[in-house]
């Protein structure tokens, strides 16, 4: 028996991959629902956006691409939906991290406009300023005078073009921005000292789960108003937007159950590996 158990330590990793594949695929094809409990950091962001006064604009630093869309897609999708629903105008950009960010944001917005908000208009309800480089310098420039950092939007319209970009005619600097929501695998912490620290503008992050551990400290010190952590954060935000579980269909909600199943397989694998380890130690005496 001990010898058999000790073999658990040497299971071929490819069997584990296959188990994860099957476990994760199952909830996609079988209707399984699990409850979602909303964490404080998600609720804080939701409530902060709910309190947005009229006339203010939200800036979304959507600096993610294919590598992290499993987590970041859902995080921007739910916030964009919330902004569209509340009719809060927003500006999309990607500072420093990836030039593909604005394109991916466009995909999410196009989907939302097509499926849920067909009356929302580019230039009025949102503007995509595209990619910009410069890290903290770019952030400071955006805060002081947005036109010094961006001359045109991603479609080639001048920021002073009142016909195509009426929204940008009332956005000059950081005073017009209610919140900066930075979504990427690992949001740039420079937003905190150079924008929140200097101008007091509220900042929120949407980050990969792996990075969240380093950002929780900013929530405690109130340097961040909220944070969406991985798929979980996106699913929680979707739950706040749609209390009725049947109405939820964001990326976060779709992935959270398969993720739970995948985690279950990993937990079982860790337990089996430990049983194998102790059995092998016992066999050696």
């Amino acid at each position, binding site marked *: 028996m001990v010898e058999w158990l000790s073999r658990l330590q040497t299971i071929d990793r*490819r069997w584990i991959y296959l188990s994860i594949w099957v476990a994760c695929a199952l909830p*996609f094809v079988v209707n399984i629902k699990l409850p979602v409990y909303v964490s404080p950091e998600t609720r804080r962001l939701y409530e902060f956006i709910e309190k947005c006064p009229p006339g203010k604009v939200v800036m979304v630093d959507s600096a993610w691409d294919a*590598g992290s869309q499993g987590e970041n897609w859902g995080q921007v999708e739910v916030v964009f939906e919330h902004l569209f629903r509340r009719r809060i105008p927003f500006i999309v950009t990607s500072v420093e991290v990836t030039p593909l960010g604005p394109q991916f944001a466009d995909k999410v917005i196009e989907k939302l406009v097509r499926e849920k908000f067909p009356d929302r208009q580019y230039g009025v309800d949102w503007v995509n300023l595209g990619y910009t480089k410069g890290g*903290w310098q770019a952030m400071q420039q955006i805060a002081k005078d947005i036109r010094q950092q961006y001359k045109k939007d991603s479609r080639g319209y001048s920021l002073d073009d009142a016909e195509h970009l009426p929204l940008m005619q009332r956005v000059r600097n950081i005073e017009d921005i209610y919140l900066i929501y930075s979504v990427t695998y690992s949001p740039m912490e420079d937003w905190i000292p150079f924008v929140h*620290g200097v101008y007091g503008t509220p900042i929120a992050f949407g980050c990969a789960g792996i990075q969240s551990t380093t950002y929780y400290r900013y929530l405690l010190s109130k*340097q961040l108003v909220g944070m969406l952590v991985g798929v979980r954060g996106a699913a929680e935000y979707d739950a706040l937007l749609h209390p009725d579980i049947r109405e939820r269909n964001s990326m976060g909600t779709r992935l959270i159950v398969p993720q739970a199943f995948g985690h279950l397989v990993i937990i079982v694998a860790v337990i089996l590996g430990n049983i194998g380890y102790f059995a092998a130690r016992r066999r050696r005496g």
Partner: protein
Amino acid sequence: MEGAATWQIWLAAIVTLGIYSYLISDNKIYRLLLNIMIGLGVGYNFIIMWKQVLQPLWWEPMTQGFTALFNGFAPGSAKALWVLVGLLGTLWYFQFSRKYLWLSRIVIGMTLGAGAGVVFKQQLLMNMPQIADSFRPLVARADGTPLVGGSTAPLSLWMSLNNIIFVGTIVCVMVYFFFSFEHRWAPVRHTAKLGRWLLMVSFGAFFGNTVMTRMAVFLERLQFLLRDWLKVPMF
């Protein structure tokens, strides 16, 4: 990949499976795809960098400046000075020359000087609120304030316990990182040991979150393969 043509979906699926073939073993298809991805990324970044950053923020103002300059110092001629920024930037490339390496040191020095100044500001604005937040009352009201003061919130055991754990963890971990003296005295030794355990707990949280992220990346691809490529009906 909504709205994508069939050939695009097939191409994406083949590339995804080709990358995942590494899970079975390292192979030539995986390496080929990896190199293609890197090449595509570099090429795309270069174009975007020019079109959305260098052209509107540097090239266009500079050429406008020169046009004004050649029209008899018309207004806006000062923009021609942007050429100096470009010249300074090109000094970086002298790192490839042994003879003129010293030229690159000019911009390296400027970058280091500016960086040092900025880091000072950055660290101050980022970490001072952190330090201020670490001073917490061990007996606290529900809103986190101490018993003395203007707040009328009720005493909260939960908040107090939270603060005790928070402050205790900071102290223990800081003691663990005191390397200027040997941890011989029992209270210091035990506190440092507890600090090490608490660090292990945080590393465990890091690892758990790592698994969560990797799983999410995989799930997005799995969803694509099942829904968009294999057309499996999904919930």
